[in-house]
C-alpha cells in the first residue's frame, strides 16, 4: 500500500475519534451547565474542557471569556478550531475522498453521510438545535463509521492503519482528559476525596461515557483509585490506556506479520503494554498521577513518530 | 590541442535535506572538433541512474543522492583533444531539426531593443556573414563586466544595461538571430584561456546559429570570435537553463549555497 494511502487512512480514524472526543466534552459541559451551582465552578469547568481538547488558547484568542454559546460554536462548528467536530468530520471526509477506493462503500457512505448531514446542520438555525441533539448526532455518526469498518472492511493493512489511528488517538485523548482533570481540579492533595472531587471525577467518567460501566464494574463509592484503575489499567474499559495500547500493539503485530518485517514501533508498543500490565494503582499514585500521565502522553507521542517513520512517511527502505 | 579539465561543483545546505536528484549534461559533445581521451563524472556518495543521448546529441546522466545530506559534490575530471574548426559543429549527430530552435523563451524574448539591434545589422544574403555581424553587434552592445547581471537576467535587460557576462551575450545573440529567422541556441562548455593568454573563469557559454548549407556554427560574442581548439563543448538548449550542465533539485527546506571550482589548462606537449 502507498505510504500516503496508509497515512490518509490513519488520519481518517484519528479525526473521527477526535470528533467524538470533542462531542463528549461538549456533552459534559452542557450537563454541568444544568447544575444549580453554575457559577465560578461552572466557568472553571468549561475552561478545563477547553484545555482537555487542547483548544483553550485558540478559544481565548477568538472569544475571550468562556460563554457556553461561544464554546458550543467553537467546539462544534468552528472551522478555525482544528479540533471542532465540523473540522474533524470535514478532514476525515476529505482524507476518505482521496483514498475512496481503499474503503468499502459502506464506510464511505457512513462518512459521506455524516459530512452531508453536518452541512445540513450548519445551515440550520442555531435556535432550533439543542446541544444534546448535536452531540448525540456526532456520537451516532462515529459509531456508524466504526460499525461499518468492523462489519465490512477487509482485514488487510488498510484496516490496521485505521485501527492504529483510532487506538493512538484514543490513548492520547484519554490520558490528556485525565491529566487536565487532575491537574486543573486537584492542585492540592487535600482536595482528593472531598465532595467536590467526587463530583469532578463523575464528570470525568461522563466525559468518557463510562459512568454506568464504572458502576457495574466496581460498585460502591467513587474513589480516585477506582477511577484511575478503570481508566488506566482495566482491559474491560473500552477507553482505558491499557485497552488502547493493546489495540495499537495488535495492529502493529498484524502489520509486521503481514509485511514479514518487524519495526521498532512494534517493539515499543510491546514494551508500553508490558509496563502497563505490571503497574498497579499504587504505583501510579506513588509516581504521581500527573507525572504518570505526562510520561504516558510522551510515550504515545514517541510511538506515533515511530509509526510515522516505519510506515507513513514513505522514507523507510 | 589537449586540454585538461578539473571541475568541482559543491552545493552546501544550511539544513539537512531529504535527498537530491540531478540531471547532468557534463560530457563533451561528440563531433569532429573534440575527442575525449579521458572523462569521469561523479556525484559524491550518489547513485548513477539512466544514461542516454538526447535529441540534441548531448549525453545525459541521471544521479541521485540519498539523504539526509548537507552537501552535494559533483566532480568532473578529464582530458579532451580539440581541433580548430572555426566554430563549425561538423560531424555532430542530432535529431532535433534546426527549425525547432526558433521559439523564444523567457530570457530570449524578442523585446524591441533586441529587434532594433538585430535590424541594425546590414542585411546580407550570405547568412554566415550575417551571423558574424550579429555576433559582433552583440559583442559591441554588451560590454563584458561580471557582477552586474545574474542568472535570471533576460537578454533585453542585459542589452539595456549595456553590460553583462557570457550568458547575457549568448542570450542576446540568440534572440537577435531568431528575430532574423535564424535558428539559434545556447551552448555551455569550457574555455581554457582568452586569446591574449590571460586565464579567466573557465566555465563558459556561447551561442550557435544554424546557417543553411553549413549547419550549426558557434559564435562567442563575449570574446568576439568563433569557438576554436581552446573550447570544449558540453551541452546545448534554447537558453541557459535548458543547456545547464547540471540541473538538480534537493528536497528539504535548507538554503543552498553554490561553490564552483573549474580549471581548464592546455596539457604540456
Amino acid at each position: 500500500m502507498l505510504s500516503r494511502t496508509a497515512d490518509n487512512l490513519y488520519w481518517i480514524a484519528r479525526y473521527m475519534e477526535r470528533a467524538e472526543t470533542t462531542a463528549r466534552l461538549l456533552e459534559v459541559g452542557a450537563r454541568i451547565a444544568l447544575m444549580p451551582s453554575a457559577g465560578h465552578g461552572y466557568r472553571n469547568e468549561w475552561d478545563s474542557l477547553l484545555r482537555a481538547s487542547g483548544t483553550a488558547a485558540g478559544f481565548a484568542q477568538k472569544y475571550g471569556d468562556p460563554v457556553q454559546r461561544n464554546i458550543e460554536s467553537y467546539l462544534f462548528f468552528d472551522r478555525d478550531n482544528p479540533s471542532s467536530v465540523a473540522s474533524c468530520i470535514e478532514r476525515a471526509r476529505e482524507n476518505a475522498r482521496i483514498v475512496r477506493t481503499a474503503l468499502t462503500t459502506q464506510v464511505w457512505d457512513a462518512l459521506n453521510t455524516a459530512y452531508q448531514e453536518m452541512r445540513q446542520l450548519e445551515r440550520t438555525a442555531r435556535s432550533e438545535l439543542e446541544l444534546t441533539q448535536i452531540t448525540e448526532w456526532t456520537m451516532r455518526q462515529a459509531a456508524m463509521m466504526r460499525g461499518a469498518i468492523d462489519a465490512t472492511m477487509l482485514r488487510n493493512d488498510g484496516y490496521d492503519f485505521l485501527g492504529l489511528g483510532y487506538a493512538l488517538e484514543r490513548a492520547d485523548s484519554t490520558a490528556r482528559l485525565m491529566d487536565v482533570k487532575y491537574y486543573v481540579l486537584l492542585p492540592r492533595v487535600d482536595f482528593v476525596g472531598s465532595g467536590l472531587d467526587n463530583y469532578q471525577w463523575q464528570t470525568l467518567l461522563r466525559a468518557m461515557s463510562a459512568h454506568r460501566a464504572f458502576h457495574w464494574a466496581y460498585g460502591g463509592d467513587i474513589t480516585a483509585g477506582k477511577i484511575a484503575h478503570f481508566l488506566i489499567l482495566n482491559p474491560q474499559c473500552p477507553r482505558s490506556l491499557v485497552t488502547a495500547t493493546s489495540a495499537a500493539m495488535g495492529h502493529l503485530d498484524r502489520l509486521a506479520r503481514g509485511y514479514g518485517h518487524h519495526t521498532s514501533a512494534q517493539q515499543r508498543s510491546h514494551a508500553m503494554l508490558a509496563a502497563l500490565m505490571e503497574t498497579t494503582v499504587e504505583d501510579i499514585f506513588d509516581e504521581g498521577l500527573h507525572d504518570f500521565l505526562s510520561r504516558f502522553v510522551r510515550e504515545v507521542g514517541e510511538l506515533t513518530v515511530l509509526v510515522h517513520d516505519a510506515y507513513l512517511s514513505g522514507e523507510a527502505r | 590541442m589537449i586540454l585538461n579539465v578539473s571541475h568541482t561543483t559543491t552545493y552546501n545546505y544550511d539544513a539537512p535535506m531529504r535527498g537530491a536528484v540531478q540531471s547532468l549534461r557534463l560530457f563533451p559533445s561528440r563531433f569532429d572538433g573534440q575527442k575525449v581521451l579521458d572523462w569521469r563524472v561523479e556525484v559524491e556518495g550518489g547513485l548513477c541512474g539512466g544514461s542516454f543521448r538526447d535529441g540534441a546529441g548531448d549525453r545525459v546522466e541521471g544521479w541521485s543522492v540519498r539523504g539526509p545530506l548537507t552537501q552535494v559534490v559533483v566532480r568532473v575530471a578529464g582530458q579532451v583533444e580539440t581541433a580548430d574548426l572555426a566554430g563549425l559543429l561538423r560531424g555532430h549527430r542530432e535529431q532535433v531539426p534546426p527549425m525547432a530552435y526558433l521559439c523564444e523563451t523567457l530570457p530570449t524574448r524578442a523585446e524591441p531593443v533586441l529587434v532594433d539591434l538585430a535590424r541594425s545589422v546590414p542585411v546580407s544574403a550570405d547568412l554566415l556573414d550575417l551571423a558574424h555581424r550579429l555576433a559582433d553587434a552583440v559583442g559591441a552592445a554588451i560590454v563584458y563586466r561580471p557582477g552586474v547581471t545574474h542568472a535570471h537576467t533576460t537578454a533585453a535587460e542585459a542589452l539595456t544595461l549595456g553590460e553583462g557576462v557570457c550568458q547575457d551575450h549568448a542570450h542576446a545573440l540568440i534572440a537577435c538571430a531568431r528575430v532574423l529567422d535564424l535558428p539559434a541556441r545556447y551552448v555551455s562548455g569550457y574555455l581554457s584561456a582568452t586569446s591574449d593568454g590571460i586565464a579567466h573563469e573557465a566555465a563558459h557559454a556561447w551561442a550557435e546559429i544554424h546557417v543553411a548549407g553549413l549547419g550549426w556554427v558557434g559564435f562567442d560574442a563575449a570574446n568576439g570570435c568563433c569557438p576554436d581548439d581552446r573550447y570544449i563543448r558540453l551541452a546545448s538548449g534554447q537558453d541557459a537553463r535548458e543547456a545547464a550542465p547540471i540541473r538538480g533539485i534537493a528536497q528539504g527546506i535548507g538554503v543552498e549555497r553554490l561553490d564552483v571550482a573549474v580549471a581548464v589548462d592546455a596539457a604540456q606537449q
Partner: protein
Amino acid sequence: MATEYFNEMYEAGAVRAPYARLEDWTRAMPAEFRQMKQAEAEALFRRIGITFAVYGEGGDPDRLIPFDMFPRVFTQSEWRRLERGVKQRARALNAFLLDVYGRGEIIRAGRIPARLVYQNEAYERAAAGFIPPRGVYSHIVGVDLVRTGPDDFFVLEDNCRTPSGVSYMLENREIMMRMFPALFRENRIEPVDGYPDLLRRTLASVAPAKCGGEPTVVILTPGHFNSAYYEHSFLADLMGVELVEGADLFVEGGFVWMRTTEGPKRVDVIYRRIDDAFLDPLCFRPESMLGVPGLMDVYRSGGVTICSAPGSGVADDKAIYTYVPEMIRFYLGEEPVLQNVPTWQCGRTDDLKYVVENLCDLVVKEVHGSGGYGMLVGPRSTSEQIEGFRARLLADPGNYIAQPTLALSTTPTFVNEGIAPRHVDLRPYCLVGERVELVPGGLTRVALTEGSLVVNSSQGGGVKDTWVLAE
C-alpha cells in the same frame, strides 16, 4: 428549426430501427416514475462520489454532471464503420508522432508544413529521437465525433494526451443497468465493462524492456483537487493499480519507485493524468510540485514508460488536425473512413479573409483551447460578441481556426417538459498498445439547453449512456 437537424430516433416521422424498443419504453413511462428514477440516478451518482469541479468557477465543488436517462443507440453496422474509422485514426496519429520525433518523413515529403510541427508549442524537443516501447506515443486516443446524417460522421477533434470522461461511459452504463434491467433484457447491448481490463493490458503491453515479469502500472494524478480526480481513482480501482501523486514517486538507479508501507516498489508504466509541463521539474517547469524530479532521464534511458508519451500533444493540435487525412494516406496507404470538418487556418491570409467575412456563420476556436472556452459560435452570438471576437482574432490570427457550424444530430432527451431533441456528440476511447482496441461504446455528451450546440460539461452539457446493439 429542429427539422433542419438529423434526429437519430425519428426519420420522416418514423422511428429508426435502433430506437424501436425505446419508443415503447418511453411511452409506457409515467412522468412520476421518470422523476423518481431521475432522483434515484442522482442519488446513486452522489453516493458513488462522481462529481466534478469546474475550472475557474466557484460554487459547489461536489457538483454532479447531469445524467440523461434516455440512451443514445447505434446499430452494429453503424458502429463497425465508426470503429474502423477511429482505429484508423489512432494508428495514423501514432505513426505521425513516431515520425516527427524521428526522421520526419512526412515533412520531408512535403505533406505537412515543417513549421506547423517543429514550431508548435506542443512539439517536445526532449522527446526527439526517442522510440517508446512498441513505437506507441498515444496509448489512449479519444476521438470527438459528431453526426449530421444517417451516414455522415465528422471528426471534430482528436485527443492524444489524456482524454477524460471514460469513467462516465462506465458509470452511465452501470447506473442504467441497475435502474432499468428490463431494457437490457429486451435490447441486446454490447458491454463496455471490459474497458478497465483492456486499458490495464494495453499499459502493461508497453512496459519497458528492462521490466522483468509482470509490470507494475500506476496512474499519476495531480491530486484530489483536480476536477477529474474521481475518474483517476475510479480507473485505478477498476484496474487494480495504485493511484499516485508525484510525491509518492522518486527516481533512483535508473528506475522509478513508489513509496509504500513495505518500502520502495519499482514502477514500470506510468499512466499520467498530468500535463507534460508538470512531469519533471528538472526537464520542464522548474516550479512544478506535481511531478517527479529526474523522471524524464529515467524515461529516456528506458527505465519506465510514460503514457501518453511526452510530446504526444503535437498530434492533437487543432492546426495539425487538418492534416490527419493526409497522415492516414501517407502512413497507412488508406483513404480516411471518417471525414474531417472543413477547417480554415486563420494564420493563412486567404482563409482569414474568408473567416472574417463570414464570422456569423462559423465556429471559431483557439488552436490550443479546450473545454469549449475561448470559442465563438457565430450563428448563436450577438453582434457585439462577434465584433469583440473579431478584434481578438485579428490581433493573433495564427491562434485560431474556423469551421462551418455543423448541423449536429439530436437524440431524444428527458427535459422538464417531457422528451425533446437535444444535440449530441460522441467520444469513443481507442486503446493503442500491443494491439489497437475499441470497446463498443463511448461517452455521449448532450447539450441540455434547447438549441445549444455546446456539449461541454463545463458549459451546461450532460451525458448519456451510449449503446451499440449486438447483431
